[in-house]
């Protein structure tokens, strides 16, 4: 498998671009008028997971954005997913 140096050589520039995109997205949301919804709060909780280094950042980010409940909902009122759970964590 590749060394850490080789991984950086292969993926750093791409990850850097995505990181700047995230920063620009947050700035864009800040500049916009009105109130944010649950998605931004979930997003910021997920961002905090990036600072932890137990090898499961991707999993924990996905968990921050997931519906943790276990019971089926009474009926589907939409077909679409929005990317974050609207309930309280």
């Amino acid at each position, binding site marked *: *498998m*590749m060394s850490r140096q080789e991984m950086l050589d*292969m*993926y750093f520039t791409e990850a850097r671009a995505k990181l700047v995109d995230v920063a620009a997205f947050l700035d864009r949301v800040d500049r916009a008028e009105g109130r944010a919804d649950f998605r931004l709060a979930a997003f910021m909780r997920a961002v905090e997971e990036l600072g932890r280094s137990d090898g*499961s950042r*991707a*999993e924990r980010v*996905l*968990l921050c*954005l*997931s*519906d*943790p*409940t*276990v019971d*089926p*909902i*009474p*009926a*589907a*009122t*939409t*077909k*679409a*997913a*929005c*990317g*974050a*759970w609207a309930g309280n964590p």
Partner: protein
Amino acid sequence: MRYIEPHAHMVSRVTDDYRAMTAAGCLAICEPAFWAGFDRGSSAGFHDYFRQLTEHEPRRAAKFGVPHYCWLCINPKEAEDLALARDVIALIPRFLDRPNVLGIGEIGLNKNSRNELRVLELQVDLAARHDQLILVHTPHLEDKLKGTRLILDVLRNDSRIRPDRCIIDHVEEHTVKGVLDVGFWAGLTLYPNSKCTPARAVDIVERFGPERLWMNSACDWGESIPMAVPYAALEMRQRGHSDDEVDRMIYQNPLRFLGQCPKFVLPSSRRT
């Protein structure tokens, strides 16, 4: 390079995609039944769709020398209407003996509703009664974790269902372990903005091993990349995986799962 595309919605793709995929080494294409982007108004619409999957699309693929297989079901996105779902499920047995039908799929959940769950149970029962392979769609984004758990409960609660004859598709980092740990196959879907990128899919292969995993493009009418499987193969090579390891992931593994259906046969001259 040789590969099998185990999940592609070719009815939504142009002929150029067949050309590109077969030129890249695709030896078989498998197409689960899915949502058309709008709700069909009656079971007659599904009857025509099943004819398209079993009659027309194989002829289209044959022009490029590639066998086309399919899976039949009513997709969870259309499962809220129980009466329609029952009518469609009643149609399916008359198509199961057709030569390119591999099993029941892609069944599963979308928003994790009670009716979706009921329709999933009905289609699992259909598969069990007809001894069919099962291909399962797991929900999108925030609904995936819960939906995957509910789906595993349904499958594991039916003693007729063998995990090694079911593939749970669209797994990600937070669902793959739960699927593999209880003996099911897991599918890594390569999408540009949701599900897995090629880099993340290869991460998962490296972390969990290649056993009972496959990769697919799930290309359809939305943002998706028909060449995603060969692109993921390129990612594996760039990461230092050998030709044998790549071949196992994109050819041997799907062949091992799909080969459980005796109808899944590749052209003999292209299998080695």
